């Protein structure tokens, strides 16, 4: 019996070795030792507004802005979308920056379900009727994520190394753009971009998790820049409206609130006049 036992072990030892090597190879393959990979998520204002038009015609009518404005803000539908919750958080950040301005009545966050891919101005007119917005800020994005291996990825062969060593390098590049349109006249009023780049390392086992975190961080950083640029573009637009009133017509919505005000400037001029009068009277 003992003799037989030993002969059995002799038969299985090479097979066990081959099985171990194969499983190690297969596991290591799971931890991505392939070349650089690329993930892309994007949406485009042009594809949404002019889906089948190679050369869209420019709008002919002058935009009429009725103050105070009712503004909508929405993400343009895109491929490989980001989550609705993430979109809402980003839009809320943009909206919060522009609330409380005297020429904005309200800012409406338009849910993605209200916009369909390639919907164009017909879709925007539906949103206008449904939510009562006159101007819409369409937010488009383009995010590309690259993952490549570095020297530490050799440790993945040990299996344990795939959990410990950051053998993957992630690079997340995000570009966001807000284009503000007057829906009725189809005029682009102004636009503002925002960009960010996030680089991070990750162990093979956590690459996907890290990519998701980087994606969120990329959108956050790009939104911050977008808000700064939006404020700047809004100021430029204000100046443009003042200097070239023919470009955009400003009207007031019926039912505005008015105030009778004389103001500090008028009171100051009156005060100066009064001082001048006192000076003249007391002159010998």
């Amino acid at each position, binding site marked *: 019996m003992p003799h037989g036992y030993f002969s059995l072990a002799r038969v299985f030892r090479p097979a066990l070795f081959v099985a171990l090597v194969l499983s190690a190879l297969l596991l290591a393959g799971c931890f991505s030792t392939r070349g650089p990979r690329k993930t892309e998520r994007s949406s485009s204002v042009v594809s949404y507004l002019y889906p089948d038009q190679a050369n869209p015609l420019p709008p002919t009518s002058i935009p009429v*802005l009725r*103050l*105070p404005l009712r503004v909508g803000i929405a993400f343009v539908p895109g491929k490989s979308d980001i989550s609705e919750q993430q979109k809402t958080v980003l839009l809320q950040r943009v909206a919060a920056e522009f609330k*409380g*301005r*005297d*020429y*904005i*009545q309200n800012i409406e966050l338009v849910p993605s379900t209200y916009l369909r891919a390639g919907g164009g101005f017909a879709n925007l007119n539906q949103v206008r009727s449904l939510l009562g917005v006159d101007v819409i800020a369409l937010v488009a994005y383009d995010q590309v994520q690259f993952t490549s291996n570095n020297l530490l990825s050799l440790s993945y062969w040990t299996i344990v190394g795939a959990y410990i060593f950051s053998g993957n390098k992630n690079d997340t590049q995000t570009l966001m753009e807000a284009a503000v349109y007057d829906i009725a006249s189809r005029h682009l009023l102004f636009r503002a971009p925002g960009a960010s780049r996030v680089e991070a390392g990750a162990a093979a086992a956590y690459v996907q998790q890290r990519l998701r975190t980087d994606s969120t961080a990329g959108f956050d950083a790009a939104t911050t820049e977008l808000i700064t640029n939006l404020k700047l573009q809004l100021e430029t637009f*204000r100046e443009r*409206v*003042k200097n070239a009133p023919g470009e955009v017509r*400003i009207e*007031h*919505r*019926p*039912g*505005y*609130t*008015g*105030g*009778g*005000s*004389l*103001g*500090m400037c*008028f*009171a100051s*001029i*009156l005060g100066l*006049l*009064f001082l*001048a*009068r006192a000076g*003249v*009277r007391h002159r010998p």
Partner: protein
Amino acid sequence: MKTPPAAPARALPFPWASVCVIAFTLGVAAQPALASTLLYERLALLRGEYWRLWTGHFVHFGSSHLFWNLAIFTVASIWSERLAPARTRLLLVASPGLIGLALFGLEPALATYGGLSGVATSMLVFLSYTQLARLAAPATTNKNEPPTSSPTSDRWFWRAVLALIVLKIGAEFALQQPLFTRFAPAGIRAVPLAHLIGVLVATVMHRNLRGFRPRFLPRRTG
């Protein structure tokens, strides 16, 4: 030879009407809950709350709005009431209502209105007219209104005040930049029509009611 003693200078009348209006305006500012009842609101007016035509002027949309309006009103109204008490008091009663009525008729898009500037403009214009009239005929004193010390030639000053008001209203109508008008609370814009009506009311009052004195008030003697 003894010279006859000079007649004692008559004390200028106390501007109680102006003081009442100022107190009322400050009272409304101190009790914001009153604003909803007193503010000019077109829908409420259409429901029959006509007092709002008059009271809307005493509601303000912020401390700065209140301060500058009241500063000009206080000076103009008290000065004016001391010079021409009867007509000033009549103007204080009539101008808020007439301005409110004009806004209701001529500015249908105006949903809500507040601020004393229309009345203050009216008082300032009336004061300027009164002063100019006194300077034009210093010898003839209105027996219904107390004589005051004859001022030196301030005609240029009062003309400048009138010109400034006209320029301001003209600029408000012509160069209106409603998009970015800076007004304390959001969404409120200036209404130059209220100022224009204020000027018209003061002009009519000055031109047509010179020497006005209500019958129930005793006539001054001496």
